[in-house]
C-alpha cells in the first residue's frame, strides 16, 4: 500500500529543539528556593559501618540538613523486586535489594551512606567530605569464580553463600548427541560488557507543594509511570497526587529503567520533609559507581556438529555477576541463555547459569542486556567448528538457519518476559546474502588490495536474533484540537529514539495530517498514566501500535462526523492535509480543527451517549515479543607492530519487520554499532582485588569517538511480525549485540597466520600483544629486553 508518512525517511521533529539547546532536561528545571543534594558514598567495597558522625557537615554554613539511614525510620526499606523468580522448574533465586542509605554494612564502592542538603551543590559536596564514617573493612568479593568458595566472605549475611541464582533450561538431550557427533568443539569464553555511559547522567528534581498537596518529580527515568506508582505507595500518597515527568533524556540504554535508585527514593522524601524543592544531578564520577553496569560472564560451552557442519546440540554453563544486589532479577542471564540460540536450528540445548553476588555496582540490563554474551559464545563456537571442518564462516551459518517455513518457532525455553521463547517470524538467508555482497567477501578472498608489509587484514560475518517488543502493554491518546493541532500522548519515556517523529508518522498516516503538525508528548504521568516504559526494544512495537490503534479510532470518529456534515458516505471520504474531503473533490472538504470544534458543542443538546471531541485512548499489548534479526560484517586491518586495529568497512543488514522511519532506524543501528565497538575494543570496567573501581573516569574508561567508529553501510530485509497490526519489530539494541563476536572473528581472521584463537572480549592493543606474545618462548625474549 502506498503510504504518505509511514515508512518515509522524515527528519526528526525534535531535532531543532535538541540541537539548539532548547529542549527540557532535568537539570534545566529550576524552582524558587530549590536546594541541592550531594551524597556521601562508601569508599569501601565491603565493610561494616561502625560509626557515622555528621556534626561537622551540619555546622557548615549553607547546609540545611544531613540524613543517614537512622533518620529515615520506616521509610528505610529495600527497593522492590522488579522481576520475581522465573517460572522455570528447579530455579533457585535469592534476591536481595538495595536500600536508600547503607545501614550496618556497605556492599559496593559508591553505595550511598548519607545525604547532604545545602544551598548549593558546592557547599553540599564540601559538607559531604566532612562526614566521618568509620568502616571496618571486610575482604571484597571480586572474582566471579571465587565468589562461592566456602571461605569467601558473605555479602548478604542472611544468605548461606553468595549464590544469587541458579537456573537450568534445556530442550532435547545434549548428552545423547555427543557420542554420535562428528566433532564437539568445547571452549571457555570470557565476555565483558561495560557501562552505558549515557551522555546525560541521572538527575532528579522533587518538589512537594504542601498547599496543593502535590508532589512533582522530574526524573531521568525510562519508566515514569512505574516510578510514580511506586513513590506514591512508599510516601503514602495517592497516585493522583504524584506527577512524574521524564523530559528529554540524554540517553538511557537500560540503566535508567532500574528502579528504585536510592536517590530516586530519597529526593521526594527530602522535599516533603523540608518543604522545599530539591535537586540532585549525578556527576560523572558518581555515575561510574552509582548507576548500574553490565559486566562479565564466563562461559564453558560446547557445540556438537555432524560432518556437514549441522548443529546437533549446544551445551553451555556460565557464571553471571549480579553485583551487590539484584532488583532486576534474572533478565540479563536469561537473555544470554535464550539469545545464544540465534537464528539457528538447535535441536538439543542445555544451558545452566549461576548468578553470584559480588562487591561491585549492581548489574542490570544495558543495551543488549546479556544478549551480547550469548551471541558471542554461539558465533565463536560456529567459527571454531567451521575451521575444524574446513567450511567457511558463511556456509556453516547458512546450513544451520531456521528455514522460512519454521515460524512461529517455539524453542521450548522461558524468555525474559517469562513467556515461551517463540520466534514469531524470520527469513535469515536473504540478509546473509545481502551482507556477503555488501562487504564483498569474494573481493576480499581474491586479495586484490595492497597493504603495508606490517599490516594484516581480516574479514568477518556474524548473525543474531533479538527478542524485542515484549509486553505487557502501552497506551496512547490521540486528540484533534480545535486549532487543528493533533496531540499524541503516551506513557513511555523517551531517551532520544525519535518518538516525537515516529509516533507522529504512525498517527499522521491514519488521519491525514503532516507529522510536523502533530505534537507528541511522552513520559508525563499527569497527561497519561498507564504503561510500562521504554526498554527491551519495545517503544515502537508496543507504544507505536497503541498510537496506531488510537489513530484508527479517531479516524473513525472523523469519518462518521464528516460524512454527516458533507452528506457523503464514509467510504467516499479521504483524509488529506488536515482535512476530511470527498475523494478528489477538494471543494467538498472540512478542516479537522473545525470538526473538532463542532464535536465539542457549547450549547444545545446532543444525542445521549455522545462523546465530545475527536479523541481516543487505546491500548496495545502483544501476545509475546517479536523477533528481530540481522547480520553484521566487517573488514579490519591489524597493525602487527602496534597491535592497533582499524575497522575499514562495516555492514549491517537488519530485519526489524516493517520500518516506520528508515532514517531513525539508521541512526539506531549506527549508534548501536558505536556502543558495540566500544564494548569490543575500548570499554571495560576494571576492579582491583579490593573492589575499588580502577578506571572511573573518561580518561581511563575509553568510549569510542567519531574517529574510531566507521560509517555503517546498511540494508534491510522486511519480515513483518504477525503479532501486531503494523508488523513492527524492535530495533533499539540491534546495532550493539553482535559486534563483539564479529570483532573477535575478524581480528582472528586477520591474524590467521599467527594461529590465534580469540575467546574473549573486550580486546585492546595491549591485550592482543599479550595474547600473541605470552605464548611460549616469546614472552621471555620480550622481558629480557630491559
Amino acid at each position, binding site marked *: 500500500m502506498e503510504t504518505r508518512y509511514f515508512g518515509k525517511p522524515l527528519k526528526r521533529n525534535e531535532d531543532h529543539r535538541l540541537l539548539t539547546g532548547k529542549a527540557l532536561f532535568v537539570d534545566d528545571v529550576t524552582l524558587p528556593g530549590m536546594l541541592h543534594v550531594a551524597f556521601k558514598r562508601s569508599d569501601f567495597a565491603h565493610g561494616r559501618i561502625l560509626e557515622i558522625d555528621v556534626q561537622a557537615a551540619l555546622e557548615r554554613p549553607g547546609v540545611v540538613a544531613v540524613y543517614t539511614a537512622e533518620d529515615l525510620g520506616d521509610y528505610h526499606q529495600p527497593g522492590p523486586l522488579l522481576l520475581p523468580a522465573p517460572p522455570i522448574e528447579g530455579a533457585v533465586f535469592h534476591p536481595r535489594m538495595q536500600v536508600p542509605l547503607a545501614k550496618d554494612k556497605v556492599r559496593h564502592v559508591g553505595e550511598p551512606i548519607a545525604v547532604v542538603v545545602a544551598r548549593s*551543590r558546592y557547599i553540599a559536596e564540601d559538607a559531604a567530605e566532612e562526614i566521618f564514617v568509620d568502616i571496618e573493612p571486610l575482604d571484597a568479593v571480586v572474582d566471579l569464580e571465587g565468589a562461592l568458595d566456602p571461605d569467601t566472605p558473605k555479602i548478604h549475611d542472611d544468605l548461606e553463600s553468595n549464590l544469587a541464582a541458579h537456573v537450568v533450561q534445556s530442550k532435547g538431550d545434549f548428552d545423547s548427541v555427543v557420542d554420535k557427533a562428528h566433532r564437539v568443539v568445547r571452549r571457555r569464553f570470557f565476555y565483558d560488557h561495560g557501562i552505558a555511559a549515557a551522555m546525560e547522567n541521572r538527575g532528579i528534581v522533587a518538589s512537594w507543594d504542601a498547599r496543593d498537596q502535590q508532589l512533582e518529580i522530574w526524573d531521568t527515568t525510562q519508566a515514569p509511570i512505574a516510578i510514580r506508582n511506586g513513590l506514591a505507595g512508599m510516601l503514602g500518597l495517592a497516585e493522583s497526587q504524584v506527577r512524574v515527568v521524564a523530559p528529554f533524556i540524554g540517553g538511557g540504554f537500560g540503566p535508567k529503567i532500574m528502579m528504585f535508585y536510592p536517590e530516586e527514593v530519597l529526593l521526594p522524601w527530602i522535599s516533603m520533609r523540608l518543604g522545599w524543592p530539591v535537586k540532585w544531578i549525578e*556527576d560523572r564520577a558518581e555515575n561510574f559507581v552509582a548507576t548500574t553496569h553490565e559486566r562479565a560472564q564466563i562461559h564453558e560451552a560446547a557445540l556438537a556438529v555432524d560432518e556437514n557442519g549441522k548443529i546437533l546440540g549446544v551445551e553451555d554453563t556460565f557464571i553471571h555477576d549480579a553485583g551487590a544486589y539484584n532488583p532486576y532479577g534474572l533478565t540479563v542471564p536469561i537473555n544470554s541463555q535464550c539469545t545464544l540460540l540465534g537464528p539457528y536450528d538447535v535441536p538439543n540445548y542445555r544451558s545452566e547459569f549461576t548468578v553470584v553476588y559480588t562487591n561491585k555496582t549492581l548489574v542490570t540490563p544495558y543495551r543488549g542486556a546479556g544478549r551480547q554474551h550469548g551471541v558471542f559464545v554461539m558465533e565463536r563456537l560456529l567459527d571454531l567448528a567451521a575451521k575444524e571442518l574446513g567450511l567457511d564462516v558463511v556456509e556453516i551459518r547458512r546450513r544451520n538457519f531456521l528455514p522460512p517455513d519454521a515460524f512461529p518457532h517455539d524453542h521450548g525455553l522461558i524468555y525474559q518476559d517469562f513467556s515461551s521463547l517463540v520466534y514469531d517470524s524470520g527469513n535469515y538467508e536473504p540478509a546473509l546474502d545481502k551482507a556477503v555482497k555488501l562487504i564483498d567477501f569474494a573481493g576480499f578472498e581474491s586479495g586484490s588490495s595492497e597493504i603495508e608489509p606490517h599490516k594484516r587484514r581480516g574479514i568477518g560475518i556474524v548473525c543474531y536474533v533479538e527478542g524485542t517488543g515484549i509486553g505487557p502493554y502501552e497506551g496512547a491518546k490521540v486528540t484533534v484540537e480545535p486549532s487543528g493541532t493533533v496531540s499524541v500522548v503516551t506513557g513511555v519515556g523517551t531517551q532520544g529514539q525519535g518518538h516525537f517523529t515516529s509516533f507522529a508518522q504512525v498517527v499522521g498516516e491514519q488521519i491525514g495530517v503532516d507529522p510536523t503538525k502533530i505534537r507528541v508528548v511522552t513520559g508525563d504521568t499527569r497527561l497519561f498514566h498507564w504503561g510500562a516504559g521504554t526498554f527491551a526494544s519495545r517503544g515502537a512495537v508496543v507504544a507505536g501500535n497503541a498510537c496506531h490503534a488510537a489513530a484508527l479510532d479517531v479516524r473513525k470518529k472523523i469519518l462518521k462526523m464528516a460524512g454527516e456534515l458533507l452528506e457523503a458516505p464514509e467510504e467516499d471520504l479521504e483524509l488529506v492535509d488536515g482535512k476530511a474531503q470527498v475523494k478528489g473533490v477538494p471543494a467538498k472538504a472540512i478542516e479537522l480543527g473545525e470538526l473538532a470544534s463542532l464535536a465539542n458543542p457549547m450549547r444545545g443538546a446532543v444525542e445521549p451517549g455522545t462523546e465530545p471531541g475527536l479523541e481516543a485512548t487505546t491500548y496495545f499489548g502483544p501476545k509475546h515479543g517479536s523477533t528481530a534479526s540481522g547480520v553484521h560484517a566487517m573488514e579490519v586491518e591489524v597493525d602487527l607492530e*602496534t597491535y592497533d586495529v582499524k575497522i575499514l568497512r562495516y555492514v549491517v543488514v537488519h530485519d526489524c519487520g516493517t520500518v516506520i522511519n528508515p532514517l531513525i532506524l539508521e541512526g539506531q543501528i549506527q549508534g548501536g554499532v558505536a556502543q558495540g565497538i566500544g564494548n569490543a575494543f575500548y570499554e571495560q570496567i576494571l576492579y582491583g582485588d579490593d573492589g575499588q573501581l580502577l578506571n572511573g573516569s573518561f580518561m581511563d574508561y575509553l568510549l569510542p569517538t567519531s574517529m574510531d567508529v566507521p560509517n555503517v553501510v546498511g540494508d534491510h530485509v522486511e519480515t513483518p511480525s504477525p503479532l501486531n497490526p503494523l508488523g513492527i519489530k524492535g530495533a533499539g539494541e540491534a546495532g550493539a549485540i553482535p559486534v563483539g563476536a564479529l570483532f573477535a572473528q575478524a581480528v582472528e581472521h586477520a591474524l590467521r597466520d599467527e594461529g590465534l584463537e580469540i575467546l574473549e572480549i573486550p580486546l*585492546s*592493543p595491549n591485550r592482543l600483544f*599479550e595474547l600473541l606474545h605470552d605464548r611460549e618462548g616469546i614472552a621471555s625474549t620480550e622481558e629480557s*629486553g630491559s
Partner: protein
Amino acid sequence: MKPPVFDYFAPNTLDEALSLLAEHGDEAKVLAGGQSLVPAMNFRLARPEILIDLGRLSELTGIERLDGGQNVRIGAMTRQRTVERHPLVRKHVPLVHETMPWVAHPQIRNRGTFGGSLAHADPAAELPAVLLALGGRCLAKSRDGERWIDAQDFYTGLFETALEPHELLAAVELPSVGPGEGWAFTEMSRRHGDFALCGVAARLKARDGVVEEASVALLSVGDGPTAAPSVVEILVGQAPSAELVSTAADAVVNDIDPPGDLHATPAYRRHLARTLTRRVLTAAVDRISG
C-alpha cells in the same frame, strides 16, 4: 565533581603575578589554560588554596625569532593552537608543528597553553619530550629575577620541574632547524587525542652522509620525558641506513624502565618504544636525504 573553596587572583601584569607568587607560592597554583588543573580540582585531586590566573598577562604570549634566527622564542601563555598554526613555528621548529596535532583535541588546544603543558610535567604529555629532543631552554621568572633552565635539567620527577614555588615559566627558546637536519614525532594512543601509551620525538643532523648529532626523547615510559642516549650513541658517527636505524631503535629499551598501567604493560611499552623509535628515526632520516 566540584572543587573545594579557593581564593582567586587575576593579576593584570607580570610583576603583579610574581608578587602574588612570592607571597603565596607554597599554597598557590598558577592557572594557565586550565586543561589539566581544573579537572584535577574538580576531582579534588588538586586542592590549591589560591589560584593565580595568568590569562590577562599578554607579556607571556607571542612567538618570535631571536639571535639572528638561531632560536624561536614562545611565550608560556601562548595557546597551543596558536603555536600549531604559527608560520614561524611551521618553518623554523617543524618538529613542534608536527607534534601539535597529537596534543589532545583542537578544543583543548584552543585553551591549553604551550608553557602550561611544559610546566605541568605530565609524563604522558607530548611537549616535554619535544622540548627535550630539541634541547631547548626554559625561562623562569620570579620577583627576585630570572634564570634559564636547560631542558634536560627542567624535569625532575613525576609532575615535577626545577621551578621553585615562587617562580613561573615565562617562555621557552627552541633552536631553529638547520641544514642537514631531519626530525619526526609519533605516538601510539588508544584514541586520537588520548595521552599516549608511548611516544617518541627525534631530531638528527647529518653532514657528509654521517649522523653528526642526534637526540631522541620518549614520553609515557618514565616519570617524565625520557632521553635515549643508547640510541644516540649508536647513530652518531654512522651513515644512516635501515639497519642502523633498526639497531639503534632496539637499543631504546636500555634507556627506559616503563611503568605498567590499565592500558599498557611494561613489556608492551618496551615493544612500542622500539617500534615507534624505528618509525621516527626512519622518517627523520628520510627528511635529511629528502
